[in-house]
């Protein structure tokens, strides 16, 4: 949407008559430069300082106070992500199906669901953490466990998956549905065989974004999944994810080198996840 015409010289000339506009233009450019320079600097700084510390001992399967290995945390992160998605993805997709395909327009209940989803989206992660501690850890007697963490996170990412699925379902043209009905398929068959498959890229983009949030989450996990740095025995044992591990290393201040290296791994994970989500979203707009 660039609306710049003419050569640079001409433009500068026209700015001569309007110095105010010229200053505003400079401010806009400056702001954009600050934003993107800050991001570049952050990434470059962490890569430059962290990559040299990526040693094999960091990836040892047993955590000791010597190596501060991130492997157990990485595995915990994978388990946590899988469990949270297992809960949140079906719930999110099903509720989006209800909202888009089944609920009638102007339904009061739909309004309530919209409002609660928006509310969930705005709740800070520490409040989720508190709730998880009160409900899953204490009330359900699960203790500090991966399961409690996964349930807490699944509530946190639920609105994200709901929203993206809703958008994806809405973007499926009605003619698909009409065609399917016209061929004699029932509502359920239409939803699962026709509508959902064409909405997959959009749903996927949302799910991948959810993965990004789960991987990066700390505050909601400290008092639900705990901070044990060992390999988990089962889902009822406590375990720290990579982000929690990173926080502990940095705040203890004893393992700054390992903290840099862990930051690299975390950052790379997040960049990969973001790129994947972008690719999925692009597929949706193409088809």
């Amino acid at each position, binding site marked *: *949407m*660039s*609306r*710049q015409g003419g050569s640079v010289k001409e433009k500068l000339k*026209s700015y001569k008559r309007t110095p*105010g*506009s010229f200053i*505003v*233009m400079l*401010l*806009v*450019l400056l*702001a*954009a430069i600050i*934003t*993107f320079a*800050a*991001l570049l600097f*952050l990434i470059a700084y962490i890569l430059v*300082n962290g990559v040299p510390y990526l040693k094999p001992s960091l990836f040892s399967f047993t955590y000791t106070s010597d190596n501060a290995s991130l492997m157990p945390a990485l595995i915990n992160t994978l388990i946590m992500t899988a469990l949270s998605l297992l809960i949140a993805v079906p719930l999110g997709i*099903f*509720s989006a199906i*209800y*909202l888009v*395909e*089944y609920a009638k327009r102007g339904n009061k209940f739909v309004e*309530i*669901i919209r409002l*609660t989803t*928006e*509310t*969930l989206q*705005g*709740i*800070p*992660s*520490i*409040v989720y953490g*508190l709730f998880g501690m*009160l*409900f899953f850890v204490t009330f359900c007697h699960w203790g500090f466990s991966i399961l409690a963490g996964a349930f807490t996170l699944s*509530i946190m990412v*639920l609105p994200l998956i709901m929203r993206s699925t809703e958008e994806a379902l809405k973007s499926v043209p009605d003619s698909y549905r009409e065609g399917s009905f016209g061929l004699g398929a029932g*509502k*359920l068959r239409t939803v699962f065989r026709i509508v959902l498959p064409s909405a997959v890229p959009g749903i996927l983009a949302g799910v991948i974004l959810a993965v*990004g949030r789960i991987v*990066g*989450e*700390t*505050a909601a996990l*400290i*008092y639900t999944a705990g901070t044990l740095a060992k390999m988990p025995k089962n889902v009822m044992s406590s375990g720290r994810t990579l982000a929690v591990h990173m*926080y502990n290393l*940095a*705040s203890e201040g004893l393992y700054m080198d390992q*903290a840099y290296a862990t930051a690299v791994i975390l950052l790379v994970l*997040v960049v990969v*996840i*973001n790129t994947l989500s*972008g690719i999925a979203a692009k597929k949706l707009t193409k088809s």
Partner: protein
Amino acid sequence: MKRKALTEIVMQVIFFVAACASVLAVALICIFLFANGIPAMKEIGFVKFLTGTLWRPKNEIFGIFPMIVGSLYVTAGAIIIGVPIGILTAVFMAYYCPERIYKPLKAATELLAGIPSVIYGFFGLVVIVPLVREFGRTMGFHGNGNSILTASILLGMMILPTIIGLTESSLRAVPEQYYEGAVALGATHERSIFRVVIPAAKSGVIAALVLGIGRAIGETMAVIMVAGNQARMPEGIFRGVRTLTANIVIEMGYAAGLHREALIATGVVLFVFILILNFSVALLKRRSEHE
């Protein structure tokens, strides 16, 4: 045929039940937070809890006023730093950005949103804290760099993607004719944008601002890592501060009894703040839809 109708109905019920999950989640969150937090507030005294300037858990003195003020200070700082840069960057994205570099820059703003808060916190700890410490010393202030200013800069950076994304989409929602009309009347590119397009996109920009406030006030880990976390009234932008969120995370690990409940009550106060913010965003949205 009948069997088919049955599965249809069963699945419809399942979809409906799934849709109830988010309502149930919000209800549970409210119930558990309020049920665990309100009694402690009552025991301490609502007014004493909210306006007390002393936080001494060992002596059973629980006043969270310093933390409320702390949260407000760092949020205000984040807004002062993040909002102008964010809005101007959004203007850049919508009206200045050459098409060739638009896509990578858009991806960059999304990445900015995706970076975990621990990474931001770590970056703040190793980069911004020393910078602010040096800057403070040359200005004649003492302090170790863990300060309101540091937290504000870091949070300002963290709310950028929220502000940029929402502002840009509300700028793009303004009809093209507004801009063209202004230019046709002889206004410059800049004057058309700032005098015509941005006022027309006002409600979207305000929504961006409110969501930015919500993100800043609710941020936890990044703030803990750079703000110093002293539980006393803040004494200047180069001095340390503790926010509501930090109060919960720092002390929950060893708190018990009334102390623990007071921390949950801190969470309730934060939750109410956020609910008010959310509610005002919802109102703004409704209003702009009706226009």
